[in-house]
């Protein structure tokens, strides 16, 4: 097993503002988290906050150790609830999208 997993992370619906105004980020995620388990979405969230998010407003992305309400997490274009939520183990080439819900109309 390689040391890192190449994945694509995208932010839309205004969340990109928290990530240097870039929608798409190609990252190499360590294959295992600190405790030696395969990297899952929960680890990815922590990784994004620690490494990719320059904005100080962490609570616009994470609340109570989870994605804040109003953000959909998509694993390869499916709601993460269909894939095991934060326990889903990331695979090389995965596409993870964070979508903030819009309310304007």
């Amino acid at each position, binding site marked *: 097993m390689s040391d890192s997993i190449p994945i694509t992370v995208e932010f*839309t*619906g*205004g969340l990109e*503002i928290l990530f240097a105004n870039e*929608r798409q980020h190609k990252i190499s995620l360590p294959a295992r988290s600190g405790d030696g388990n395969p990297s899952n979405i929960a680890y990815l969230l922590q990784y994004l906050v620690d490494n990719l998010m*320059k*904005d*100080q*407003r962490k*609570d*616009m992305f994470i*609340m109570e150790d989870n994605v*804040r*309400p*109003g*953000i*959909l997490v*998509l694993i390869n*274009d*499916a*709601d993460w*609830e*269909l894939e095991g939520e934060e326990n889903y183990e990331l695979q090389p080439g995965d596409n993870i*999208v964070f*979508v*903030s*819900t*819009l*309310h*304007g*109309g």
Partner: protein
Amino acid sequence: MDTLEDNCASLRAQIASTEAQLAGLKRDLANAEKAAAAAKSENIGPAGNRKEARIAYKQQWPLEQEEYKRYGRQMIVSQIGLPGQLRLRSAKVLLVGAGGLGCPAAQYLAGAGVGTIGMVDGDTVEVSNLHRQVLHRSQNVGKYKVDSAIESLKDLNPHPTYIAHRTHLTPAEAPAIFEGYDIILDCTDNPASRYLISDTAVLLGKPLVSASALRTDGQLVVLNNPPRPPGDKHGGPCYRCVFPKPPPADSVVSCADGGIIGPVVGTMGVLQALETIKLITTPCDNISQPKDSPAMHLFSAYADPLFRKIRLRSRRANCAVCSSEATVTLDTIKSGSTDYVFFCGSASLPSLLSPSERVSPRDYLASQSENDDSKGESSDPSSKSPVLIDVRDEAQFGICNLENSINVPISTILASSTSSEGLPSWLPPDISPGSSNPIYVVCRLGNDSQVAVRKLKDLGLGQNDRFIADIKGGFRAWREQIDPEWPEY
């Protein structure tokens, strides 16, 4: 003479007789043609009784002549056909919101011949709506949006029945209003309304076509489709299944604050009309069959591809509305015990500054001219020259700004850490902890400017008795007190 006159009379008689014969032939032909057409549509043989065929023909045309022409171009599409057109005519559709989504959605539904169209909105038309709310005309500024919209819709198609609900949708009234319709369109702009609409639609068994838009992006989802009673797993998910918890109120951005490109919200409204037409015209036995997994469509004007489809979950086993463990009922909605305002919260106002940390536009201007007057006398004028920071974003700064102001968007300020060690790079070069020149902060309405002042003080820039204040009321107050020509956008 007699023979000539007899000849003339004979010729007249022959003409009259021939004309009578011709008229008789024409009448026979017309009858034969009608009978043939009726026979064709009735599928009865040419031997069928003419008189009966004519009566059957009259009963056969369910639409008015004008309607065949009006709806012909969509009726000849196989997915619609005459049955689809008749379903559209007997359908009753309610649009909640007559704005950027509701206008284009209603326009296409009225055009398509939906028989009853209701619209709910308590707002009046503003000039800033016109770039995207395509049913409203400049002359209707100030009028109820629903009246303005229905005026345009009647112009477009006089056949449907239009119903105006001149009110903001309230929990007390929602169930009674929704009762009279088959399908609900959520064209609103805030989370509290979205939860109320979804809950009411689920409890009354109506499918819900929901859309939203902001800046360059839009989202579309058909909820409670198929509409099944709470507890039935085969029903489509509702808004609460997808979003069980509302977003923090501070994270909700409106079109007025965030902006919106007209065709972006227009695209979403048009798609709502399309999904509604599909729901109405798809025969019932197809609707009751298991559907593809529920999906949301994301539109992003500056992305490639423009559209993206995401698969959503099905009904949530513990959903507060559509599961067997539901706690929300029509009674809790009507009585107010399901409190949508409390559930969604309201945005907290920024921590207010004390009066000594705020100056009115008038006082700011006075202090500026004082400063100009004293400049000539002072030995070291640069040490006291004030700095004006405009914390609106770049696009707004580009629309109008004050001479000598420095643009530092509030998002940049908030993105930096509050630690005073290592000052953030966005600080204008002539501000340093050692200097004492006053700092003024201005924004659009006077909220972000207060947040920015607090942040500057947290960074330790208020030392040396430096004066840091915001301009109270922002550029809106500036326009009222100083410059009536300051652009109001």
